[in-house]
């Protein structure tokens, strides 16, 4: 049961990671755009930040899943 719970918490963490990456990227982009003044720079930087956040989220999730996969494989080998 505890193992399952740890796994669930891990997956919830991945969800939070995706949301945080994308939001921080977009909000950061918007902040930079506002500093640079001009509305079009605000929009462009928000979109750029969003895309960067998206890339970071995808890469991070990919790595996390790889780590989980490797972990499971090690465990199943150990059980044998």
């Amino acid at each position, binding site marked *: 049961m505890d193992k399952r719970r740890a796994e669930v918490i891990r997956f919830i963490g991945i969800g939070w990671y995706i949301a945080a990456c994308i939001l921080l990227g977009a*909000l950061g982009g918007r902040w930079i755009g506002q500093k640079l003044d001009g*509305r079009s720079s605000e*929009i462009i930087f*928000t*979109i750029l930040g*969003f895309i960067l956040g*998206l890339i970071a989220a995808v890469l991070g999730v*990919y790595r996390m899943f790889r780590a989980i996969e490797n972990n499971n494989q090690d465990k199943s080998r150990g059980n044998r």
Partner: protein
Amino acid sequence: MPKLGVKSKLAIGGIVVILLIAIGRLFFPVPQPGLELAANYSEPFYKLGPIYITNTLITSWIGIIVLIGFFYFATRKMKLVPKGLQNFAETIIELLLDFVEGVAGKENGRRFFPVVAAIFLYVLFNAWLALLPVFNFIGINQMQADGTSIYVPILRAANTDMNVPLMLALVSFFSVEYWGITSLGLRHYLGKFFRFGQLFQGLGQLIRGKVKSAVSAFLYGAIDVFVGALELLSEFVRIISFTFRLFGNMTAGEILLLMMAFLIPWIIPAIFYGLETFLGFVQAFIFAGLTLVFATMAVAAHESEHQKS
């Protein structure tokens, strides 16, 4: 811990929901969402020659970039035994190819596959992209000519813009017609819609003086012409039904999400996000599946019908 009955569990659930509503409304008020059906563009950043850059257009560009990027990285280092990203991409493509070939057959399936798969993946990616937290949430207030200001989100789901479903419907329509004409020949294909064969037969019999059979031929000929006209109409009605099905479903989903986030900001919207994830898949599947079915019907020779009658 004492075991709880179903009733008390339900009661506890209800109390928790009411508490969530109360806490959310008191301490974390969400502004009432305003949603416009027309796609908006933000003022200084809206024209590229004759094209208006709307927020939905930007989203669809991002969707295209994501799709191209995904398949570029998946197919960059192709191996015979796929691993990682290539494996994932191949799974998707193989599932789609199996589905297409299952409906249309091996030979036609290969012909239809690129368009059907592109429609499926494009609708799906656009629907799922719109569930990310930035959408509808970061925006700017824009002054209008009459002095009021409206809230314009920087990114909005592409499928909620009427133009995107219309574009996909037109692509689907022209592809289906093209496949029908190329595999049956123009004359044969148009013969599906303009069925004057029996009418002319009746005319011939009338000239030869066989009045009785001429009358029945005229009757069946009139029915045939009517059926052909209906087929022709249904061909064009498809564009409208395709457009409004996708547009309506996606817009309703967006409104549902915004309203749930406004009413109960905590936890409950997550359920509806799950629902929308499923709905995006279903809509993409319906759009691609219907295109596939119509294409299969268009290339099917209808000789057997005539031979029967």
